[in-house]
C-alpha cells in the first residue's frame, strides 16, 4: 500500500504507465484514458498534462503559465496544484 500523493510546488508529477494522454484524430480531441475512465481535459489542463513527464516540476509549470497568460503567479499556482491534486486523488497522476 502506498501513501496518498500530495502535490506541492516541489512535486514532479507524471502519468502512471496505465494512464495515457492521447489525441483522438477522429474527434479532434485530447483525452486521458485510464482503466474504465475517460477524461476530456480542457485546453489549460492539456497544457499541464503534457508537462507531466516526470521531469518538469509543478513550480516550473506555474512559472511558464503565469508568464504565458500574464497572470498573478499565486492565483495560477493555486489552480494548478488544485487540478493536479484532484487528478492524483483519482489515480491519474503520480510523483
Amino acid at each position, binding site marked *: *500500500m*502506498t*501513501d*496518498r*500523493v*500530495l502535490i506541492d510546488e516541489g512535486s514532479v508529477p507524471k502519468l*502512471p*504507465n*496505465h494512464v*495515457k494522454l*492521447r489525441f*483522438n*484524430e*477522429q*474527434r479532434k480531441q485530447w*483525452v486521458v*484514458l*485510464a*482503466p*474504465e*475512465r*475517460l*477524461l*476530456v*481535459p*480542457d485546453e489549460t*489542463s492539456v497544457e499541464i498534462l503534457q508537462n507531466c513527464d516526470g521531469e518538469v516540476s509543478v513550480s516550473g509549470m506555474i512559472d511558464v503559465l503565469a508568464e504565458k497568460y500574464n497572470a498573478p503567479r499565486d492565483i495560477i499556482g493555486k489552480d494548478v496544484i488544485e487540478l493536479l491534486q484532484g487528478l*492524483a*486523488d*483519482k*489515480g491519474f497522476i503520480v510523483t
Partner: protein
Amino acid sequence: MSESIKPSTPQTDTETGDDETPVVAMDAPLALLAELTHRCPFQCPYCSNPLELEAASKELDTAAWCRVMDEAAEMGMHQVHFSGGEPTLRKDLEELVGHATKTGLYSNLITAGGTLLDEARIQNMAKLGLEHVQLSFDDIDEKNADHISGYKGGHKTKLNIAKWVRDAGLPLTINAVCHRQNIHHLEDFIQLAVDCGADRLEVAQVQYYGWALKNRAAFITTPQQLDEATATVEAARERLKGTLVIDYVIPDYYAKRPKVCMGGWARRFMNINPIGLALPCHAAEVIPELEFDSVKDHSLAWIWENSQSFNKFRGTDWMPEPCQSCDRKELDWGGCRCQAFALTGEAANTDPACDLSLFHEKIFGMAAAEALKPPPEFIYRRMGAKFNTPH
C-alpha cells in the same frame, strides 16, 4: 470533465456532476465491449450473460474481431474491453490485444481467472500493449468463493493472477462481487485489494440480469445490509484516499431513482456478442421486440446509426409518462430497458427502480421479502441448462 466507462457494471456513474462532459445522442460511441466468448470455466450464478449461451463453433474468428476493432477506432472510439464469458479461453487473445494496440484503442481485459491465464501469457500481453486488467473475486474465503463460482480451485487461480498482473507492471482493478452470501466479508475484501496492490477496487453488488435474476433470492441483501456495506465503503474511501480508488455499485432495487444504464441507450457503448451481433447493452437480447444486426453484414458505423435495436430506445422520443415529462429524463435516460422488460413485461415502461413506476413497491417489496428468507440453492450458469420455473 470526466466520465465513467464501465462495461461490466454500466450503471455506476460516480463521476457525474459539474465536470461531466455531455455527449450528444448521435455522437460516436466511447467504447467497444467485445464479448469474445460465452465459454467460461466458472459457473457463477450471478452472471449477467443471457440464459441461452452461444456455442464455441459460432464464435467470430480472429479476422472478424480485428476488423471490428479497426472500425471502432475509425469511428473515434477510445477503448476496447475484452470480456465474455471468460476471454482468456480464446487462444487468439494475444493477437487481439496486439491488434488493439495497433489501432490505438486502450485495451482492458475483464477476466474471472482460471488456469488458462498463466504468467507467460500475462507477460506476453503486457508486451503486446495490454493496458489494464480487471479481475473478479467471489469472496475472500476460499471455500465459499469456490462454492459460489462452482469451480474448485478457482479462487487460488485468481490470487496467482493478481500477483502476475502486478509483476508484469499492469494496472489492476479488483472486482468484488458482493451479495448476501459474502457481504459480511466486505472489510476483508477491501483489504484483499490493498494486499494485491490493486489500483482500483470495484465493490459491485449483484445486478439482476440473466442468470443473476434467476438467482435473485440467493443473492439479494436486505436494505439494512446494504446500508452497512455503504458505510464500510465510505469509511474505506476516506481512509484509502489517493492510494486505492473504490467504485461502488449498489443494487438499484433499493434506490429511489434508476441508474443511468449504459450512459443512456445507444449513447456511449457498443457491445458485440460472441457470434457478432451488435447490442446496445449486453443484456439487450432479453427484449423480444429488438432486431439485432451482425458485424458480419454491416459496419459498426452503419449499425450505430441504423440498427433498429439501437434506435428503438435512443434519446427521449420513445418515452411514455411519467418519464416523458420528468425533468430527469436526460439525466438517467429512463433507467434500464432490460430491467423494465424483465420485471414489468414492457421494455418501454419506466424502470421499476424508479419510485414513480407503478411496479416499484410491489417488485421491491418482493425482493426485500426474499432477502429475509433462507437463500435457495444456486442455479449455476451452464451451457444448455434447463429450467423448471420461468422466473
